[in-house]
């Protein structure tokens, strides 16, 4: 639990047009090779953002991917997201109950699409609890992000508006005044009905340039909101 509240913030936003996942890399160093450590693909229909002990996260991701592939082997169909999340959480819960081992110190945001419930966003905790959300955040200062999401989220968001909202929420959680695109990882998950069945879900990792542009274009909005926040405090 403690590890999660110190980890780089991650947020997810559900819109009618798709899902946005976003994460902040905390320890960046110009000497460090650029890596992605916040957002990962699970299968052709689902991805997740993590906050917590990254090594725990990668380990659990392996598990989620294996579960997903096993389901594909049995049913020749991607695993429905809630099904994946619930079996995945069963495993996490197990480690809270058996002796000798510590539980996993990591929270996940699962974003995905399936033919049963459409776009979905789930938050899972280290205890194995999970719930569906329209927009949520985990990690360091996620309270501020959540407040922002609660205030600005509407059911009619477009994907572009969702991206800005996600950035805004992340900006709230950071101590620095301005957003730095270099520490942000962002992806979108959308459905393209023109593609052939089974390959309709498009997962796009946003290039740094693109994130920079977004921040630049919506600079005022992102900063202005920060000021309001200060006034409130």
């Amino acid at each position: 639990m403690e590890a999660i509240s110190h980890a780089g913030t991650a947020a997810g936003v559900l819109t009618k047009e798709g899902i946005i996942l976003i994460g902040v890399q905390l320890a960046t160093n110009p000497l460090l090779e650029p890596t992605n450590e916040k957002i990962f693909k699970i299968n052709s229909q689902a991805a997740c953002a993590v906050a917590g002990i990254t090594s725990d996260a990668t380990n659990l991701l392996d598990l989620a991917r294996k579960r997903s592939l096993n389901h594909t082997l049995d049913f020749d169909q991607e695993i429905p997201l809630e099904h994946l999340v619930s079996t995945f959480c069963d495993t996490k819960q197990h480690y809270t109950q058996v002796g000798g081992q510590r539980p996993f110190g990591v929270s996940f945001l699962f974003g995905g699409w399936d033919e049963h419930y459409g776009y979905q966003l789930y938050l899972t905790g280290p205890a194995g609890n999970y719930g569906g959300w329209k927009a949520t955040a985990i990690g360091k200062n996620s309270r501020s992000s959540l407040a922002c999401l609660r205030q600005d989220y509407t059911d009619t968001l477009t994907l572009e508006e969702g991206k800005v909202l996600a950035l805004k929420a992340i900006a709230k959680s950071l101590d620095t005044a301005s957003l730095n695109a270099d520490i942000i990882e962002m992806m979108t998950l959308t459905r393209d009905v023109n593609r052939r069945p089974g390959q309709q879900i498009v997962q796009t990792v946003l290039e740094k340039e693109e994130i920079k542009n977004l921040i630049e274009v919506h600079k005022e909005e992102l900063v202005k909101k920060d000021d309001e926040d200060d006034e409130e405090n």
Partner: protein
Amino acid sequence: MSQSLFGFRGKDFCILAADASAQASIVVIKDNLDRIFEADDHFAFGCVGDPGDDTTYSDLIVRNIQLQKFRNGYTSTSHANANFMRKLLHDGLRDHPYNVNIMIGAVDLPSDMNDTTTERTELMSSSVLIEGSNPSPHLYYLDYLGTLVEVPFAAHGYCAYLLYGILDEMWKKDMSVDEAKRLLSTCIKMIQKRFVMQQPKFICKIITKDGIELIEPLNN
């Protein structure tokens, strides 16, 4: 092999037919055996093969499909169910083979026609559902080796020798229910006329968006 099982697809429905007699050696011991199992509201399959194997396997499938539905709160697609059945046959092949041949008939409903799904989705998210398309019928041929194919019509066992000619000639795309019932009658008559075993009674079921029903063949 001597048991008859066949089926075909119509415009928005599937029809399965199986002979209703049970044999032990040269004796007919039953003439009202229902070999067509209803695993779900819109998912049925006919099962012929070794007595014992057929009931064991069918029961296993029916219970598992029900269990999945209970756990998930929605019905799996017929494609998923069919592949699950295939996997089970194939997993058993080298170890505990089920000597059964299967014909699956199912209708997939778009999610906005599925009551439970709609309820949940409204509650959960503002997501757009799968586009409201028409119910889609699916017929799968599945043999004891685990060969799964989706087909417009198919037959298992000796009756295949007699029926494929008729089905090839008379099956039409987008058949109506009445046309399908006439084809059904032609097929059954052919089996009863040319096949050396007596199969006086057939059980026929139609799978539509409204569920599974018993039907009678329609004489011309």
